[in-house]
């Protein structure tokens, strides 16, 4: 089982869109996939039309493994399940440690519920906290969408500093350019500068700024479904293939 986190310390960078489409692509390739919506805003769940789970708001939630596995919902697509949002950060922490620990009751419960997943994707909330640190330690790969602008560049540098300061393995970070607009010269210049500075950390695939991605909120489906023949779909497919290789190397 591989754990892949979609993470950005800056909001509105296309993190959830990436998590949703990558989860779909992993599942479509036949891998049993669980997408965990850890962002309290619950956008991942919304895209898959899954209503937030009521049981998740209960404080005792993580003491009860059965309740956890019961709150997982099958998506409309083969091999893809969703854990809807509404988790507190405290729960989030316990969740990670349990999912990692092969002897944990959570892991056994997932197995027993025939949800022994090949890939678990985490759609993380956008901030750096002691809790994010646990995501960084638990995940096999951390995908970081970066809009090629000055502010995003700054946020990315802050993330790298955080990794350095907390002795976290930088090689888990796999950044990619998101919401790229080819017509903007600033985007081109920023990408050039960042590629020079962080050559090994950036993947080849780029996600364009596309109305098909914006419209995911209207269609409430991955772009692979709502716009299968589009530049956005092709871009996510390329990203998926690159991520799959990176994760296999871990």
């Amino acid at each position, binding site marked *: 089982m591989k754990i892949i986190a979609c993470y950005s310390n800056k909001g509105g960078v296309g993190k959830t869109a990436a998590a949703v489409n990558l989860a779909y692509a992993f599942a479509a390739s036949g891998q049993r996939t669980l997408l965990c919506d850890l962002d309290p805003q619950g956008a991942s769940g919304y895209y898959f039309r899954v*209503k937030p789970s009521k049981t998740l708001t209960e404080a005792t939630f993580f003491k009860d493994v059965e309740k956890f596995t*019961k709150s997982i919902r099958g998506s409309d697509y083969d091999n893809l399940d969703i854990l809807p949002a509404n988790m507190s950060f405290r729960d989030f922490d316990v969740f990670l440690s349990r999912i990692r620990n092969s002897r944990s009751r959570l892991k056994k419960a997932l197995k027993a519920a025939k949800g022994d997943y090949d890939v678990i994707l985490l759609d993380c909330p956008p901030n750096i906290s002691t809790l994010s640190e646990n995501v960084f330690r638990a995940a096999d790969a951390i995908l970081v969408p970066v809009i090629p602008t000055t502010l995003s560049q700054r946020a990315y540098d802050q993330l790298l500093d955080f990794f350095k300061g907390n002795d976290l393995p930088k090689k888990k970070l796999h950044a990619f350019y998101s919401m790229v607009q080819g017509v903007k010269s600033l985007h081109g210049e920023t990408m050039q500068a960042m590629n020079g500075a962080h050559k090994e950390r950036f993947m080849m695939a780029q996600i364009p700024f596309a109305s098909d991605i914006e419209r995911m909120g209207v269609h409430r489906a991955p772009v692979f479904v709502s716009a299968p023949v589009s530049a956005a779909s092709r871009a996510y497919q390329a990203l998926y293939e690159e991520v799959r290789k990176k994760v296999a190397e871990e």
Partner: protein
Amino acid sequence: MMETGSNSYFLKPDALASLAQGMIGNLTAVLTLKDGAIPFTLLDTFDQSLRRSGRMLLEIGETLELLMSDGRVLSQPAERNGRFVTDFQAGAIKQSLSDLSPLRSLSPVGSGDVRRGMIAVLDDDHKTHCRAYLQIFASDGEERGALVTLQGLRGYGKSLGELRLHLEACGGAPLSFGEIYAEIFPEQNGYDAKPEVSMAPDDTAFDAATNIISAHFPVARANEGGIIEDHDTGFLHDYRIALRKIRSVLSLFKGVYEKDQSADLKARLSDLMKPTGRLRDLDVYLLERQRSYDLLPDTLHGGLDTLFRMLAEERMVEKAKLARHLASKTYEKEVAELAKLFMKRKKLRPGPAADLNAHDYARDLIWNRYRKICSIAGGIGPSSEDAEVHMLRIHCKKLRYLMEFFGSLFPEKDFKTLLMPLKRLQDDLGQFNDHSVQQVSLQDFLWKGNNWPDGVDLEVAQSVGALTAVLHRQQLELRAKVVESFAQFNGPKKQKKFRHLFHQRRDTK
């Protein structure tokens, strides 16, 4: 992800509309039908072992699909080298069918069209909670029924439960492949090599004998087509068993029919069987081909090539001969007349035992046969003649037939405990006999004096000689096995049971 489990149902075509209509609780059912119907052919062995084991094999275009009773569907390319499972390409279906008899071919049960669709059950956000996959089968241009497979999505168990209730309310019945066969191909009567002949305790011996015989003529006749077409060796095998059972009734049920008529009928049955003997022998030799090769070193395979080539050629001739015979008017007239005689009964002349109670009559027949077997088996040892073992085999076969004929008159559980070890004993006896017959026929083959060139002559003689020696050694081992399995068959507990069921005084039963 999918919830698994037994989720398959059968639905009559007129109930489909109500299944797909409107609301299920707070949820909406949305039906999508795929465009166009696809032609399909339903495949099974002649004895419908797939249907019996709860599976359905469809050939749809270039794909084979195997529907399992739990709703799973396996598929693989349809292209294959022949009619047997071994001729299939490696794949999920071939693997799943590995339990089928390698001797039985798969042939079309019938053809029709299948239309596929799905009912999605959605909430107010248009999120799917569960689905019902539909396969609507039609034959002769008429919709016959639908196979409905429910699929639940994780976390929506309640909705699946509601869909299931809705489906059941619409008339959905838990899947039975027997029903699907019968609905899609109503003209198919379902072949059964061992038809159950029901008997009432107050039936007479005459009723019992006549019922058994008239149930077995259709079995024999159902196999004629397959023998003529030469689909597989199972047809001739079943044909012969059905006729042999009829002949056994005539010879075992002494006094049920008038003496002269009984003798005449026995002779006519023997005449029916006579033309089939050589072909069956050749089938057995050829089915053993691979085992013969495995028994001898490569250096002796050359002679076997010649041997089996000759046997195969002879089989072609015999098969053509039998096919001509079965298609002839003389045969048709004779077999139809015999079947009619037992069906109508008017011309059957009852013998002195005709009015005996079937149950009492059965007890006596079985008990006497059992005693006979015990006395023969008691004398079999390392130095006994093959002929004695052969006799034991014949009597065991007769006992088995009797027990099967009258099975419904006795407690099922008791019968099973006696039949199982009898079957094992018969298997060993059968093998012993095959080994003995094969050695004789190998010698015959050499003595026939085929005009082979010198080199081939020697090669064949060497191979046949070596094979005979190996068969002889195996036969000795089998003789010891027969003694052992007889002991199993006739242990103290089983002796007691035989006595209890078939010999205890009538007034104490």
